[in-house]
């Protein structure tokens, strides 16, 4: 604990506020990101400055802005998070929370908080973890093991396409990944708010939880908790998952290595492809 006088005054004043607010426990689980330790008491001050307008003073996503924005701000009291490196049903790591906050959530009102100093962001992570008792009771999950990425060959892309068909991704994401599958229009999140699946073909090339192949891998191997997107970790082998990543890249309007391989192969072989979608005869 710090011992300088102004900090002690601030801390005890905050301590009084926090006791009244019922937030920071005396021995909160440690928060560490890249060697930087988070201080929840300091984080609360920053939260009141940057976050409270949407996420609310009680961290339940009921800030005064919430009624006018869609999707709704995260409810930290529920401790259900979309962007994790950990399995579905478990809590994210400090790094996951730090990255989500820094990156922001494209297509939502959650901005990139990258301009805030690292210490501030880590303090905010520490404070956010005080909104739910689950952090102390269960702690963060264990990140899934991601094998090294396999080469983005045409065989990999074609196998990924088979997985896209077999795992029925097209039911929500549509046969070309346009977010227009048969189930897309009725999707609701866990709080019953309507929600749309990601449209791979749109100009928004960043995913909800990142932009790299590794981020994409994690999205379908851990699921986006609180949303309709499930985890496929029980059904897709880790090496195969890279094949699906490579195929998904071909659906996006980006100059990726995967798209280059696909575009080179397609003209001579397009007629060999069976269409994605419901089996013929339905």
């Amino acid at each position: 604990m710090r011992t300088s006088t102004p900090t002690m005054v601030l801390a005890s004043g905050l301590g009084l506020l926090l006791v009244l607010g019922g937030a920071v426990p005396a021995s909160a689980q440690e928060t560490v990101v890249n060697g930087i330790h988070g201080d929840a008491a300091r984080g609360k001050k920053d939260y009141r400055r940057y976050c409270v307008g949407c996420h609310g003073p009680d961290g339940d996503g009921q800030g005064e802005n919430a009624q006018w924005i869609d999707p709704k701000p995260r409810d930290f009291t529920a401790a259900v998070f979309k962007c994790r490196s950990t399995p579905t049903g478990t809590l994210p790591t400090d790094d996951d929370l730090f990255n989500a906050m820094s990156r922001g959530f494209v297509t939502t009102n959650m901005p990139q908080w990258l301009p805030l100093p690292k210490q501030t962001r880590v303090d905010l992570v520490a404070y956010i973890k005080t909104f739910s008792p689950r952090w102390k009771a269960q702690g963060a999950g264990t990140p899934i093991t991601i094998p090294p990425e396999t080469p983005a060959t045409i065989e990999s892309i074609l196998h990924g396409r088979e997985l896209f068909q077999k795992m029925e991704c097209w039911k929500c994401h549509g046969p070309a990944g346009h977010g227009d599958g048969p189930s897309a229009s009725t999707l609701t999140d866990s709080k019953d708010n309507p929600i749309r699946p990601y449209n791979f073909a749109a100009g928004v090339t960043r995913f909800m939880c990142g932009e790299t192949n590794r981020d994409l891998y994690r999205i379908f191997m851990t699921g986006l908790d609180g949303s309709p997107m499930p985890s496929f970790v029980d059904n897709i082998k880790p090496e195969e998952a890279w094949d699906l990543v490579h195929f998904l890249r071909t659906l996006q309007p980006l100059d990726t290595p995967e798209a280059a391989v696909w575009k080179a192969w397609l003209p001579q072989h397009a007629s060999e492809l069976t269409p994605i979608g419901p089996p013929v005869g339905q």
Partner: protein
Amino acid sequence: MRTKQLSSLALVALAAATTGAVSGPAPIMAGSITGTVTFTGTPPKMRPIDMAKEPTCASQHPTPVMTENVVTGPGNSVEYAVVYISAGDAGASPAPSTPVRYDQKGCQYVPHVLAFQTGQQLEVYNDDQTSHNIHPLATVNPEWNKSQPPGAPPIQASYTKPEFIAVKCNIHPWMHGYFAVMGTAHFATTANDGKFTISDVPPGKYTVTVWHEKFGTASQEVTVGATGAATANFVYKALPY
């Protein structure tokens, strides 16, 4: 201690019952609570489910199935009400080692409401030709969401805290079900005739609670006496909306 005697005698009764070798009448220490759950008034109408978006399921139902929020039976009985002891149990009961089974069949959850204990193994099966995602919307327990393609092995899970958990499939929005995770071994789900039996209840004073997804909860005090049998009936007031 009296509690220990009751527990060990209840265990003997339970053991005798499960081995099927009960000689003579069951010991009076293993009482039971029986009853019926009914309603007065007019319940909401159930509606036919249109499964056109999933032809492999629609073909399994020549006449469309109805929604299952309120399932009633003869004599104004209420099906899928979960009746359980909410107070008075002497200590927690260990979870049975046998798993419970939840099926996704014809794009419906079977059974519509599945009651089981904390710590008990749950196995979710996909009997259909289509993928489902099994998404129990827990708030007290962790919420998870897993995809289950046809032919996949059963998904295994368990819960540590008592909770009534709504279950949905995001791919098929008409699918609704419930897990009733119980903190006690003394519970039962009503059948279509509204009847329930909670067995192996030692004599004592209990609070018995009924839960229904639409009608809500109600409780009453029940005393299981020396004769071992007690009755608890519940009557819900139904409204058409």
